[in-house]
């Protein structure tokens, strides 16, 4: 089980899903990759609350799927239930992704840096890895094509949030500043939702900045759990908004009744 959030009547996984969900709008057209329970719950919750027209392609394939529950894999065909289309042609998929027909993608990695770049390839030197990870899969592709990138991480600590990645498998804001723009890439990371806080990105440096803290977490806690210098906004740092009872009910009863999202914790 994940920790209770003080005074919010929910657990951290639920708060993360709700924070993710609220970042989605009615023009969101998203899809998901492997082991992406938080985003999948977030898309489904948003669609059932404030963003009824949100498009979501389950496993990047099953458009407008409407599963009765979330299975143990977010690529599983059990997630495809109720879809309007099985969109399986890579030819068409890259068109949808390149032309911002799909405009939203979420990823995470074993390591993330201040600019929202992600490593899922190796821990240690590439040629002599300490741990050989799965590899970036489609991260290097989609992170260059999709304008609205969202990041999440359920284990916010200094091993996951690092000053320097061992390998950049997917690009966030790259080297920061206008690096993406220089490379001709659209948009960039918008938010990073963790088990401690929500980061946004400073509009100039494009480095992570605390946008809100989960109840019971101090800015010191965040900095201590983060391997790079955390930016702090001017003025008070808000608490991550409290989920409504309706959001929690829908998440628990309709979106993810079997709590598949806990597989990420």
């Amino acid at each position, binding site marked *: 089980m994940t920790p209770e959030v003080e005074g919010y009547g929910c657990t951290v996984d639920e708060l993360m899903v709700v924070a993710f969900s609220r970042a989605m709008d009615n023009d969101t057209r998203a899809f998901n990759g492997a082991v992406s329970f938080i985003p999948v719950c977030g898309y489904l919750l948003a669609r059932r609350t404030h963003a009824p027209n949100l498009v979501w392609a389950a496993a990047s394939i099953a458009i407008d799927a409407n599963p009765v529950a979330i299975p143990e894999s977010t690529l599983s065909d059990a997630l495809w239930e109720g879809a309007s289309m099985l969109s399986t042609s890579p030819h068409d998929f890259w068109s949808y992704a390149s032309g911002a027909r799909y405009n939203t993608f979420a990823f995470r990695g074993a390591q993330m840096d201040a600019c929202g770049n992600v490593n899922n390839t190796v821990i240690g030197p590439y040629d002599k890895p300490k741990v*050989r990870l799965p*590899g970036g899969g489609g991260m290097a592709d989609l992170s260059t094509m999709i304008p609205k990138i969202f990041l999440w991480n359920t284990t916010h600590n200094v091993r996951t949030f690092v000053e320097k990645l061992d390998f950049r498998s997917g690009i966030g804001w790259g080297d920061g500043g206008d690096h993406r723009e220089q490379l001709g890439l659209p948009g960039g990371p918008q938010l990073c939702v963790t088990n401690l806080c929500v980061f946004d990105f400073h509009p100039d440096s494009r480095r992570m900045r605390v946008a809100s803290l989960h109840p019971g977490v101090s800015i010191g806690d965040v900095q201590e759990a983060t391997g790079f210098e955390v930016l702090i906004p001017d003025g008070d740092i808000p608490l991550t908004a409290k989920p409504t009872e309706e959001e929690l009910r829908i998440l628990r009863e309709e979106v993810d009744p079997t709590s598949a999202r806990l597989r990420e914790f």
Partner: protein
Amino acid sequence: MDKRASVEQLVETIPDGATVALGGLSMNSAPMAYVREIVRQEKRDLTVVAIVAGMSVDWLIAGGCVKKIVSGLVSFEGLGLAPMFRMGVQSGRVEIEEYSEDLLICRLRAQAWNLPFVPTKAGLGTDLLPLHEQTGTIRVEVDGATGEHYVACTRLPVDVALVHAHSADELGNVRVDPKLIWMDNEIVNAAERTFVSVERYVNHSDVVAEPHRTTYPQFMVSGVALAEIGAYPTSCFPEYSHHNSFFQAYSAAASAPEEFKTFFADRVLGPETWDDFIKSSGGDEMITEIRRLSA
């Protein structure tokens, strides 16, 4: 021309040192009957191309068949890292030539379309590009007219593509039912030869009755072999799911080298035929379970 043969016969034609591309994606639709037979026939020094893989690559590494993996991702998804892949690469026994999905697809298309390269924006700004700077298999270029950056992905030659499908007729017309879900056509189009394992044979007249449902035409297929539940322990949408308990038992055994050796020799390679392997993996009861999970 009758293209039907046994898995054993077709694998016999694959030489050591060949470049073999595997179909499927992650936990889905891998050509496991061919993979098992490659290990049983002790093929060596293979270059294995797999866009997104898991158990297929892990078996080949466990069997000592692999010189180099060309891939975008190898894992068991939520069930953890692919253990032999992880250890093989960490120990340096197995070389990895790493790309992303689209970079690999573009290299396969350059091969299929006979082009010096296929461009994409995939990979820009990532560490995948310096990785290939010396060989030049992918390289960053700047378009002269617009100043835009792109990645030029060069040809990736493939000797044999191995894919799993639902049915084939005697001529080698293959159907993926109800349609191609994964990206197997990308490797089929690039490969010199393609071998398909199928859940069942159908008559040519069944193919002709619904020609819009044929996935690969006979002239793209060099051989077809019957392998029921032939993607096990990966899935074959929509007929059966992957088999969680096999993945778990495999991963558990992998934590101790001796235990794994026994597990792999007895449980994976021991059974004489593919049917025997399926029987010893749980037989009808297991089949009922994985069919139910996908229904």
